[in-house]
């Protein structure tokens, strides 16, 4: 099934001419209304009129997450605040979040794209959509909610947490579609098993999982334990929120990115050079219909490749391969954004702790775990166990207090954390290897 037959199956040449037309409109608009972009274009020596084809896109400078922080909170908005009907923000727990604003039409577009995504995932009008993405500043909850309503399904606005109640509602309300993070789905399965609830007796048929990296192995586990089809959804608040790209249930291979609203590019993350379709690199997205906060060549930091081959589902929009990682270090641990630099700033305040540390992120019993490895030095070392345990307890508590994340602290021998010439390898994310 396809939600919007006309747009989802446009021939390639029509998609491309539509993209060029919408891109030029977007560029003219941001050039006129967003001083940041005007300045960017001026510095790059390029004017919107010079962008005449998709190939010309590479002449434009990138937009980075830092640019959003520098223009906090409303600096990148392209319309006056009176036209903004919704504001979301990234879940940054310390420091400034990144703020995005939506016009009424943006909300409409988002609802449309989420409705397309639901249908691509195999949901229909008449489904009971159990939405366990968090409602709030985070885009997940409301994004999925509006899409479900647009589809005409019955949406249960569960939000996250309260697992027992989630299971009860799933049973009693006959939920047929589950939307949540992949790790939470496995946690639901675990609690259900403890409570003697059999997913085979539930009506769930599809789960739409996103907002954190997951793997094929995890898909198998989820499908087995929850007795449903697990679909990968991709989105980021800077671009829209959930519904930027989604797998179709027909292929379950690669995520269709809605090309009538976004232009994807793949670049070499080091040189910034555009790579041909099919090659792996960092995903860069330009929004071409967004009004509130258009993004020109936004570097997502997500590593993927474009799959140009036609898909069996009939959609003509290209697919993105399942994200294999983030090129920058932001971690999402149990739904909380954690930057290694935040952990670093906690460690720096603790006497006797070396500035060398490593974060090991893993998934144990379906929940994200964070291990902070810290080198012991002569100053912090003691011949008494209780002193060292006191040190690790203190580090754990300060990280919990500052970032809201529970971690395990492992003290390691000096010089055992690999040093690197350039950017230190601070994070080992084992979730991606699962």
């Amino acid at each position, binding site marked *: 099934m396809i939600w919007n037959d006309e747009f989802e199956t446009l021939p390639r040449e029509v998609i491309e001419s539509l993209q060029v037309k919408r891109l030029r409109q977007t560029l003219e608009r941001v050039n006129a209304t967003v001083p940041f972009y005007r300045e960017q274009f001026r510095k790059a020596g390029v004017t919107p009129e010079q962008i005449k084809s998709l190939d010309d896109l590479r002449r434009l400078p990138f937009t980075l997450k830092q640019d959003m922080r520098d223009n906090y909170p409303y600096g990148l908005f392209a319309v006056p605040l009176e036209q903004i009907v919704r504001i979301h923000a990234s879940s940054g727990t310390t420091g400034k979040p990144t703020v995005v604003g939506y016009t009424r039409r943006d909300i409409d577009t988002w609802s449309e794209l989420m409705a397309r995504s639901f249908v691509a995932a195999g949901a229909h009008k008449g489904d009971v959509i159990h939405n366990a993405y968090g409602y709030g500043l985070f885009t997940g909850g409301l994004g999925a909610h509006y899409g479900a309503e647009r589809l005409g399904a019955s949406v249960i606005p569960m939000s996250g947490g309260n697992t027992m109640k989630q299971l009860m509602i799933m049973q009693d309300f006959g939920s047929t579609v589950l939307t949540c993070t992949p790790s939470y789905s496995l946690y639901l399965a675990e609690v259900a098993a403890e409570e003697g609830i059999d997913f085979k007796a539930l009506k769930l048929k599809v789960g739409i999982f996103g907002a954190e990296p997951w793997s094929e192995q995890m898909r198998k586990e989820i499908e087995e334990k929850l007795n449903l089809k697990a679909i990968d959804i991709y989105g980021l608040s800077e671009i829209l929120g959930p519904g930027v790209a989604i797998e179709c249930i027909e292929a379950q291979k690669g995520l269709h990115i809605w090309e009538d609203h976004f232009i994807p590019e793949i670049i070499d993350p080091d040189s910034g050079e555009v790579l041909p379709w099919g090659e792996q690199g960092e995903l860069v997205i330009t929004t071409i219909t967004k009004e509130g906060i258009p993004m020109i060549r936004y570097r997502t930091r997500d590593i993927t490749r474009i799959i140009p081959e036609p898909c069996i589902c009939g959609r003509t929009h290209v697919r993105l391969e399942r994200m294999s990682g983030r090129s920058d270090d932001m971690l999402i641990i149990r739904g909380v954004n954690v930057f290694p630099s935040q952990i670093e700033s906690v460690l720096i305040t603790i006497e006797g702790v070396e500035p060398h540390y490593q974060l090991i992120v893993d998934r144990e019993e379906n929940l994200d775990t964070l291990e902070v490895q810290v080198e012991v030095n002569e100053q912090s070392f003691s*011949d008494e166990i209780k002193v060292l345990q006191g040190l690790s307890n203190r580090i754990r508590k300060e990280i919990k207090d500052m970032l809201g994340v529970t971690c395990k602290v492992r003290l390691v*021998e000096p010089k055992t954390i690999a040093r690197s010439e350039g950017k230190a390898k601070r994070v080992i994310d084992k979730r991606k290897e699962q």
Partner: protein
Amino acid sequence: MKVEQISIFIENKSGRLAEVTRVLGEAGVNIRALSLADTSDFGILRLIVNKTDEAKAVLKSKGFTVNKTDVVAVEVPDRPLGLNSILEILDQGKVNVEYMYAFVERCGENAVIIFRFDNTDEAIQVLTQGGITILKGERIYNM
């Protein structure tokens, strides 16, 4: 009256202990007494050796975290209640023991207990007043 002890931080992974003893052996350092305290992630190896400063220096040069602390060595008659008499004295003197370990002297009738106190000087005073023999460092290093 005090004995110098070195402690070494050891991650809980195979071969680390052997690495310490190899480094010390190659430097001609002889281990007199040892104890290993362990947690699930790491251990602390405490050693009394014949050449404390050399041992510390050579371990440090090999990248180990080492520190030096003062402990007290006490001679205990190798018979029932031998250790108890000392602990009673410490208890009455309200001295806290952080940890302790023991070994039996070669061809001797006595055992040697190594104590780590939170307040070493006070502990020495209490033990001395209680008539307990405290061994000099040299005696242990050259055993």
